[in-house]
């Protein structure tokens, strides 16, 4: 059945800090994993994710699904599944102060924002260019707004966010834009306590 003590042992050795995930959470995530895995071969493919309605109708749904799959692969196993979901663990108060010198945990505010940033930055050059913004806007409003209006919206967005004048939004600028958003609470899944 669920050999989660195996996983726990592996994860302790691994550098990313999933070691703070508990037995019951792993069980819960594994049962979700198996319910999504219709082919029952221990890995999830893109079609399995498309079956979730919230992802299917999300304009960024495909990109979110891609975030689960490592570079160039078509299947994700349970460890990869958990690694991506670890970004959405809530930040607990007693974790904030400890271990300042160690590697940053996956669910820190900075890593959460980085996860979101990678959804927009498709060519992975650490910048959201005007074209990438246009693509996102097109996905969000469909055909209801003309190209030239979309172009001016994209220009306006870059104008608001850009501080170093390179006509693109870097990660630091992205963080500044979302400074007032309560990312810790909005990008957290409650049951992953």
């Amino acid at each position, binding site marked *: 059945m669920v050999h989660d003590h195996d996983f726990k042992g592996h994860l302790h050795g691994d550098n990313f800090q999933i070691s703070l995930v*508990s*037995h*019951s959470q792993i069980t819960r995530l594994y049962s979700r994993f198996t319910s999504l895995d219709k082919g029952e071969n221990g890995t999830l493919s893109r079609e399995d994710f498309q079956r979730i*309605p*919230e992802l299917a*109708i*999300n*304009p*960024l749904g495909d990109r979110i699904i891609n975030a689960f799959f490592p570079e160039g692969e078509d299947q994700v196993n349970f460890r990869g599944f958990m690694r991506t979901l670890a970004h959405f663990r809530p930040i607990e108060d007693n974790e904030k102060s400890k271990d300042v010198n160690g*590697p*940053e945990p996956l669910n820190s505010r*900075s890593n959460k924002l980085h996860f*979101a940033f990678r959804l*927009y930055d498709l060519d992975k050059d650490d910048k959201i260019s005007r074209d990438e*913004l246009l693509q*996102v*806007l097109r996905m*969000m*409003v*469909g055909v*209801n*707004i003309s190209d030239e*209006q979309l172009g*001016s*919206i994209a220009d*306006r*967005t870059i104008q*608001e*966010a850009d*501080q*170093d004048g390179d006509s693109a939004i870097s990660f*630091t600028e992205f963080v500044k*834009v*979302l400074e*007032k*958003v*309560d990312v810790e609470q909005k990008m957290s899944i*409650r*049951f992953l*306590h």
Partner: protein
Amino acid sequence: MMMAKKWAKFLRDFENFKAACVPWENKIKAIESQFGSSVASYFLFLRWMYGVNMVMFILTFGLIMLPEYLWGLPYGSLPRKTVPRAEEASAANFGVLYDFNGLAQYSILFYGYYDNKRTIGWMNFRLPLSYFLVGIMCIGYSFLVVLKAMTKNIGDDGGGDDNAFNFSWKVFTSWDYLIGNPETADNKFNSITMNFKEAIIEERAAQVEENVHLIRFLRFLANFFVFLTLGGSGYLIFWAVKRSQEFAQQDPDTLGWWEKNEMNMVMSLLGMFCPTLFDLFAELEDYHPLIALKWLLGRIFALLLGNLYVFILALMDEINNKIEEEKLVKANITLWEANMIKAYNASLTGNTTGPPFFVHPADVPRGPCWETMVGQEFVRLTVSDVLTTYVTILIGDFLRACFVRFCNYCWCWDLEYGYPSYTEFDISGNVLALIFNQGMIWMGSFFAPSLPGINILRLHTSMYFQCWAVMCCNVPEARVFKASRSNNFYLGMLLLILFLSTMPVLYMIVSLPPSFDCGPFSGKNRMFEVIGETLEHDFPSWMAKILRQLSNPGLVIAVVLVMALTIYYLNSTAKGQKAANLDLKKKMKQLQLLVASNFHRYAGDPGVLLTLLLKSNDLCKVPENKHCGVAILFKP
């Protein structure tokens, strides 16, 4: 080591258990997925109110109603606990019980039933003291819990600085990730598109000012109409309360259902129809939808508040009448007692041994009990409010949906897209109704300890009923405009209502004399004297002396001054820290610019960059931030 691990595991399991115990989570998630997060926020608010009411119910039930039921004298033993002879015949009729008269009035549900004996039962439970303290504790607990919720949400608000990143926020944060229903998703797409179009228009229109005078005149006209409506509704309520007093004098059998419930119906109907009028007047004003929503909420708030206060004023009128009446009744009772004793002595002149002097409690003439009357009024108002809400939902939402769905086949125009179509869920109306109902509960629960219990029942059924109605008959909103980014707007209103509803209660406790023959404070001059009495009897005498010294006016004034100074000090500290915060942010920004602008020059050579940063230590003048530059550079 094993113990620490086991303890950590136990804590985690307990947290998971607590999360699993949260009621109605699945229902709310289903609503969230279909209607988006703003509708779900209403149900989250409802659930939170349920929790607050549950605590109030446990306090009133456990510390007032239960001891009286277990250890108090039973029904029929005292005059205050018995239905008067004149009303006995009809005391158990449904009509009478529905009005909370008859048997319902002379029960633990209301203030008048409780006896004023200092202790009851074998445990010497001090009932009057407990009654008073529970009343004060409920108010104090409510304040605490609302303030706590507000401070928790204060981070959410973000100081309202979203105008700096208007378009970026629209691009990055407009999608509601909790939506799972395709129809809602379509609505969301449309609303996002609408949002963008409006933002573009606003950018352009910010420069154009058209026809200021006409707009100002129209807005003045709209406000004038609104004042007329508010005044009209206030007068209507006052008139209805006066009429209900007249009806109370008449024989209840001659009154129809409408006359008996007139006042409650008038209040509920006003609350239902005036907001639509306000909506109509707002058409004249031509504001941006977000601002128009705020005006509408403000006006509905003023309407409900005005109604509530007119109701209280009319009630105060009635209370003063009853207090006057009491004096007459007292005089009558002494006469009646004298007559009774004369009659008894007359019956004794025959035989020396006769039946002992006994008067059945139902025959004793009663004083008017104004506290029970107040409690009854609030209970009746709550019940009629519940019924009006449910009937409105059934007719306005359910029947309308049935009509639109089934008559669409044989109708000239498309009912679903044109008029009347399905109703949308009116979030702000529902939240305001919830807040005002809670205000009534806070006002009435001192005089009717059963009111929190009735409210718990109501919230419980409301949850299921409204969840069903929303999923079955409503459609998601076409345009989503939240009144504020956080819940603090509604919590702020709740706090205001809490303050405004506890003021009349405190006034009544402090300045009105309790009735002489009903309730736990009968016979005292003022209700709060029970505290003084407790201090005398139950505490050692040195404590009473100390407390008497403490209530010295000079000391009290000094304490109040110290508290005012503390508030002022804390306020200015908070302001100073906010300013320091902004200052630090500015410095960080400057530093980032410095790093970014020099990075291409010294790219890849951290040593030079470090020297540059350490040299520019004037940017890091704040002592704690000596390493601020280094921290930014080496942050992973």
